[in-house]
């Protein structure tokens, strides 16, 4: 339908607005609807997105802005198109809200700037170009156990307060600064303060000029949080498709996107599915994740933080995200409780490219051997808890000692966590990482005290620490 169709608000339930349109003016699904009204003498504007069309010319919309003070009978205008976001070079260095408006008090985006609908389609099957290159992150445990794919999708899974955001910030610090290309960050339903910190941090490090930030944080309406990733993604897609660039796409947090979907789903009248999630969970995630992909024209390398409710990795929201990813890094509460940060669980984390033909024999074998040692240690843990280490045979005792060293060696001081640890951050090259773990596995580090491995960078640093201790 053409733009300019006018309707009347007939029902408002939280963020869900029912609007009645005349039969020939009914807006299309996903069209943006604008409602203007007065609240306490102040002019207010509400943007809503058409989500459902019901009988009798009633469209059910999801509001992206607060609906406080919105009266029934208010006039709603169909904009004739979905939510649009500015794309191209002008978005770099700017901060946006999900509706594509700047929120950084900067100069307005020029009106002639190209704008794209955020409801794009995934690239065609034949255009997808899967990548097999390792993306070095400088974080030992990630580089060794779940190497990230250049042009691939990576998830950081973890329960509340195990350090997902810190890791993603460190990755931004390590990758975006070394990357040199364009980065897009989508802040979905997380702390507003963190968004501000990130902005200030990027500004001071000079990365901001190559970055676009889109925030729909926890204070926003569920509708807004639901489209934040799409807005950011639309900007990333432009750089990939039009400018043929390699884009880094960070998202914190995918679960909040699912949660926002779940919040509106019930209000839209859909029957909840397993564990109370929306019945459309699969398709919503699919539409989003399928768009984050590398094509022949350019790469999108994405890092997504995924909150795991109640530390249950089998939760539908976490489980459905898993299946879309090339590499997944799982954070564990037990490891965080031991004070080992990053609290990555090396046994649960995985990567598609941890393969001899891609990462090379040395890396692959080291990772497998580390896995084997840690697995054996896990098996022995109960025996050790009951009988003590001294009851183990010599070989197992060695395994336990090495596994404990490996566990500690997985910890690493972060540049972004300097104020917590008091230690300057370490970027460890992949070769040094492999060399370090090989040293432990070969037994050459058996004489070094366990504590020296904690919060160290390379194995040389461990040796220095050990020498200082003695």
């Amino acid at each position, binding site marked *: 339908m053409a733009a300019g169709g006018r309707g009347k608000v007939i029902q408002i339930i939280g963020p869900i607005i029912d609007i009645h349109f005349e039969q020939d003016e009914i807006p299309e699904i996903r069209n943006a609807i604008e409602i203007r009204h007065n609240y306490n003498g102040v002019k207010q504007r509400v943007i809503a997105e058409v989500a459902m069309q019901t009988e009798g010319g009633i469209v059910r919309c999801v509001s992206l802005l607060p609906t406080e003070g919105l009266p029934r009978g208010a006039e709603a205008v169909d904009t004739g198109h979905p939510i649009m976001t500015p794309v191209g070079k002008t978005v770099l260095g700017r901060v946006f809200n999900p509706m594509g408006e700047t929120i950084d008090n900067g100069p307005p985006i020029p009106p002639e700037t190209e704008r794209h609908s955020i409801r794009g389609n995934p690239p065609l099957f034949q255009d997808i170009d899967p990548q097999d290159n390792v993306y070095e992150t400088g974080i030992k445990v990630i580089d060794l156990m779940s190497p990230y794919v250049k042009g691939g999708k990576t998830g950081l899974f973890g329960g509340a307060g195990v350090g997902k955001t810190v890791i993603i910030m460190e990755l931004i610090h390590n990758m975006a600064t070394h990357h040199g290309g364009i980065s897009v960050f989508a802040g979905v339903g997380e702390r507003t303060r963190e968004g501000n910190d990130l902005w200030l941090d990027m500004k001071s490090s000079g990365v901001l000029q190559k970055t676009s930030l889109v925030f729909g944080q926890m204070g926003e309406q569920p509708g807004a949080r639901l489209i934040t990733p799409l807005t950011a993604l639309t900007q990333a897609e432009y750089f990939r498709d039009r400018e043929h660039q390699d884009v880094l796409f960070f998202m914190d947090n995918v679960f909040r996107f699912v949660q926002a979907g779940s919040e509106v789903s019930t209000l839209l009248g859909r029957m909840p599915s397993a564990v109370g999630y929306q019945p459309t969970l699969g398709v919503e995630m699919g539409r989003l994740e399928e768009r984050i992909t590398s094509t022949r024209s350019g790469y999108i390398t994405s890092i997504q933080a995924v909150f795991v409710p109640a530390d249950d990795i*089998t939760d539908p929201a976490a489980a459905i995200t898993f299946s879309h990813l090339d590499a997944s890094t799982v954070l564990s509460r037990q490891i965080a409780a031991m004070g080992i940060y990053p609290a990555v669980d090396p046994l649960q984390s995985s990567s598609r490219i941890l393969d001899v033909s891609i990462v090379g024999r040395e890396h692959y074998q080291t990772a497998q051997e580390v896995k084997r040692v840690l697995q054996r240690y896990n098996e022995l843990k109960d025996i050790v808890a*009951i009988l003590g280490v001294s009851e183990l045979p010599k070989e197992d005792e060695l395994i336990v000692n090495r596994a404990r060293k490996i566990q500690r060696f997985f910890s690493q001081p972060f540049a972004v966590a300097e104020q917590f640890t008091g230690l300057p951050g370490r970027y460890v090259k992949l070769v040094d990482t492999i060399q370090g773990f090989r040293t432990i596995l070969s037994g050459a580090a058996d004489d070094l005290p366990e504590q020296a491995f904690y919060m160290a960078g390379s194995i040389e640093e461990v040796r220095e620490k050990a020498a200082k201790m003695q």
Partner: protein
Amino acid sequence: MSQLSAIKDRVRTITNLHKVTKAMEMVTRTKIHKMRQNAASAKDYQELYAGLFGALALKYVIKPGASQETSQKYCLAFFSQKGFCGGFNEKLLNCLRAALATEKIPPKLYLLGRFQAKWKHVLAREFQHIAARENTYREETAGLVAEIGAKILAGEKIEVCFIYNRLVSVLEQTPLAQKIYPPDPPAVEKEILLEPDVDALYPEALKGYLTACLAKAYWESAAGEYYFRLLSMKNANDNAELILGGLLLEYNKTRQTRITQELSEVISAFDVLKVSAEKKERGV
């Protein structure tokens, strides 16, 4: 479901371990009385014999021409026969290493007990191993005792040292490096009458003395091993019960959470169906 089965697996492992430690504790309890008796009688016998031998040794004149410098040292360490005895072997090992560290000439090292293979890499030196089972240890060590005896009688100045866990009480065994030969002179010199003479008696007495010392060290160490085992098995049982309790609680909690969730899902779905059916009826 994966979480539940993982907990179940752990419960099974720990239950099995618990069975082993429980059985071990029971076996130890039944044997411990006999061990204590053996240790007590060996100790009494050795004390008597040591007094006698000390007095005898004073009278025995070493052959002229014998060397004055200690030519050889023998070290016997008494390890455990089986595992599952906590820090018994570690304590002894530390004591042994400390004793060996002070030696200038490397002593001839003998490790008794079947549970010694683990220390090879720690000691990193040559040693001979004697299994020394409870019922055959005398025969197994007879050759060694004879060798030492012959060397002493031949006039060689040698030293014999036993390293074992001395039995202080049920809860306390202290590792000890004890010099057996040459014997310390007795505090009070006793008047003894020798028949026929010291030269005829000395070789027999020497053998008896070495055997008695060996028996004392052996049985004290053996009793200590049992006490250690009893204690560590008791601790292991306590630990296992503690872990099992925690795991069972976790298992039931997880199970209950699942049930509650499924129930609430079924009920809410049913309610939604009811509402939509009502709406349909009303023609909304």
